């Protein structure tokens, strides 16, 4: 009975979503206040019923209700409670329900925090969000209901895929979805603005914190996924250019570009049509990501069983939103005139370059991701695009991007003279160069690969440059506005990330060895001594555990345990790596196969500076959080009428 209530509440949520979008869009169009007033209660109602539905599914998992097909397929009575809860979004149906829950949560937040918006504009935003919800709820109910009964009920469940039984993976999908779905808010603001024909600085100011919030979640979600892949998929890589990773990375690039272009639109009233296009682009890429992952069109650890009906439905949704919004854009964009000019050296120019480089990277990654699918669809052969392509098309725009970032942060609007900062920037560049050389030569003892020193220098330069303003203000005893502080923190995080990537790419050592108990191997000056294996057992798995003592010279460093687990239900073997973390490197040991002659294969790895990759992403996300808390986003509309930028408050209708 209870699972049926889950379906029922999802149906109620669907009907309320229909009401939300109809009264929002039609009410604003006809300018009927009474219609528009229905929207907020509808949003709240949608949230309540979606949450109820989600709660019921979670309840079915907690109580091991194996008469529900989805529960039987993805859980087991021996599964620890926390993973029974995480199993709710462990496969297709439940993760869609999570998608919907997050969408309705964003809508609820927009409804709750936007009382300062003009009534019609707010109704339109919520109306568009309701339309997206309608699309995804009907998709779930028609093709992928998680509440479908299994007759007869299973005696026990088929268990959650072992690789998903992990704390980082329990929070990776919700985080990533918050980011994915968060781009729908910027999209709804853009569509609402186009419908109203009012695309001005106020619009940009309203959109900015939402976009940054989505970007922040996306950043954390991608970083968590990368961290998880690093230790859980077992082989120590942190990014594979897997199509599904690309599917999350492309919206990230587009939202990063959007954040920067929104800054120009808010401050100077420029780039307006471009900003709109980016908002559409970011959301379309998120939908495309959903399509790629959920349609089962890709070969990847992420994609679940394929079902053509699902793929077609998402494709139709994708087409509806992309074609619809682009058509609207085609009607509106020509009436948007540029606000004012700017000099070649100005913050606008730097941000323009930022956008060009980010979008170029996103497009090239898109080509590499979709090309194999297109070739296959037209029977032109089965190909795949290797990681070196992606490394190349990302690195070529990213390197100038990072270097320009260090300078551009200090450029003024309209016409910049970097005179005031020139000496400081030159000094920082000098220090960064020396630090980079020292890190490479003294820290690691070689120049590494061709771009090593340049990478370190760029990272140090950005970090130093990001510190200029906070330090300056701190010395004067003044606080920095939160937006500026957030920007500095986020860019500092970018610098950390660049240093981490450079360190790993230049100096990592991976070595597969065959060792018998008592044998040792040396990697990067560390001696790994294999102590042998023993059987161990966990709550729902059996494992063979290999122990490895690590020492450097005569000093013991650590003892690592690595397991080859076999989960009782699915019988899939899975490697659990042993990792020793230090500020400057990770030591990574993974147990391979029994080789005969009492030997085991082991993968030993030395990963210098790898932590800064995820730490940098985390710091960047914190920067985003700080920026959202800026006072000006909380100021009431009456005091925040766009008077700051002359010529930007034009009305288009």
């Amino acid at each position: 009975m209870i699972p049926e209530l889950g379906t029922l509440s999802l149906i109620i949520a669907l009907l309320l979503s229909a009401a939300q979008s109809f009264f929002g869009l039609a009410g604003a169009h006809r300018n009927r206040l009474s219609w528009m007033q229905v929207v907020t209660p509808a949003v709240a109602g949608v949230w309540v019923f979606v949450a109820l539905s989600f709660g019921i599914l979670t309840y079915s998992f907690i109580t091991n209700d194996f008469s529900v097909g989805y529960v039987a397929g993805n859980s087991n009575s021996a599964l620890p409670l926390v993973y029974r809860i995480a199993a709710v979004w462990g496969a297709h149906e439940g993760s869609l329900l999570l998608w919907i829950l997050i969408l309705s949560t964003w809508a609820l937040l927009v409804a709750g925090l936007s009382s300062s918006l003009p009534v019609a504009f707010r109704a339109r935003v919520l109306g568009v969000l309701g339309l997206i919800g309608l699309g995804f709820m009907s998709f779930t109910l028609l093709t992928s209901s998680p509440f479908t009964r299994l007759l007869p009920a299973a005696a026990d469940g088929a268990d959650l895929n072992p690789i998903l039984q992990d704390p980082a993976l329990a929070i990776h999908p919700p985080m990533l979805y918050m980011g994915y779905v968060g781009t729908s808010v910027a999209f709804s603001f853009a569509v609402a603005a186009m419908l109203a024909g009012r695309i001005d600085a106020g619009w940009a100011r309203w959109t900015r914190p939402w976009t940054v919030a989505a970007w922040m979640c996306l950043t954390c979600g991608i970083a968590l996924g990368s961290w998880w892949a690093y230790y859980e998929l077992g082989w120590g890589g942190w990014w594979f250019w897997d199509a599904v990773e690309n599917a999350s990375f492309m919206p990230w690039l587009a939202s990063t570009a959007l954040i920067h272009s929104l800054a120009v639109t808010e401050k100077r009233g420029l780039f307006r049509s471009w900003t709109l296009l980016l908002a559409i682009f970011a959301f379309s890429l998120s939908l495309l990501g959903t399509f790629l992952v959920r349609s089962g069109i890709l070969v990847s650890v992420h994609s679940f069983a394929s079902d053509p009906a699902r793929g077609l439905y998402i494709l139709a949704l994708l087409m509806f939103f992309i074609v619809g919004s682009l058509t609207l854009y085609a009607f509106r964009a020509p009436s948007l005139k540029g606000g004012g000019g700017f000099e070649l050296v100005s913050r606008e120019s730097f941000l323009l370059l930022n956008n060009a480089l980010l979008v170029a990277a996103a497009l090239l990654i898109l080509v590499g991701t979709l090309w194999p699918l297109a070739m296959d669809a037209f029977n032109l052969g089965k190909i795949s695009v290797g990681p070196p392509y992606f490394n190349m098309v990302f690195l070529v725009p990213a390197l100038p991007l990072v270097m320009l970032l260090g300078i551009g942060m200090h450029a003024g609007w309209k016409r910049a003279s970097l005179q005031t900062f020139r000496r400081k920037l030159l000094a920082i560049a000098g220090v960064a160069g020396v630090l980079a050389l020292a890190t490479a030569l003294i820290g690691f003892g070689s120049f590494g690969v061709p771009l090593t020193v340049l990478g370190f220098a760029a990272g140090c330069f950005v970090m130093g440059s990001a510190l200029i303003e906070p330090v300056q203000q701190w010395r004067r005893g003044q606080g920095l506005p939160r937006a500026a502080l957030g920007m500095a923190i986020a860019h500092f995080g970018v610098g950390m990330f660049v240093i981490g990537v450079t360190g790993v790419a230049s100096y990592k050592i991976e070595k597969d060895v065959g060792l018998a108990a008592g044998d040792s191997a040396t990697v990067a000056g560390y001696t790994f001594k294999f102590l042998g294996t023993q059987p161990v057992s966990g709550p729902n798995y059996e494992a063979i555990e290999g122990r490895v003592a690590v020492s450097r010279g005569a000093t013991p460093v650590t003892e690592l345990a690595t397991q080859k687990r076999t989960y009782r239900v699915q019988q899939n073997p899975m490697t659990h790596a042993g990792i020793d973390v230090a500020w400057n490197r990770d030591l990574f040991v993974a147990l391979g196969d029994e080789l005969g002659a009492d030997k085991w294969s082991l993968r030993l790895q030395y990963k210098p500076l790898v932590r800064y990759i995820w730490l940098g992403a985390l710091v960047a996300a914190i920067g985003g959080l700080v920026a959202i808390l800026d006072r000006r986003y909380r100021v009431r509309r009456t005091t925040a009428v766009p008077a700051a930028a002359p010529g930007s408050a034009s009305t288009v209708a």
Partner: protein
Amino acid sequence: MTPRRKRLFSVVAILAGVGLAAVVALKAFDNNLLYFYDPSQVAAGMAPAGKTFRIGGMVTKGSVARTPGSLEVRFVITDFAKSVTVVYDQILPDLFREGQGIIAHGRMRDGVFVADDVLAKHDEKYMPPEVAKSLKHAIPPEGST
């Protein structure tokens, strides 16, 4: 600069940038396209000699062999028409096992496929689509090995 020259300058700069980017991207793209061949195509000599490509098929039962104590492992993959021997000297993925579809990445040397990467999917029911398709060309005989 006059507005006219400024516009000209930016147009030229953009064109140069786009052109350069296109050249770099196309070159990178061309160098990194990996084609997929099944064992029959390899046996027919369709796979490029000395160039990296992907091969896929079922791991023949009983074919996995290694010298005791050595990392190097040899196995045979088949599309149930033709077979190719694969040699690999790194750790095999967790889900590698006999009778399962896999994809390997590497090149042919002396009639043997020298792999630098072997992929098996994290789902035991899984069959890479490329492998599944290539198997349809040749229906497996009952109890085939």
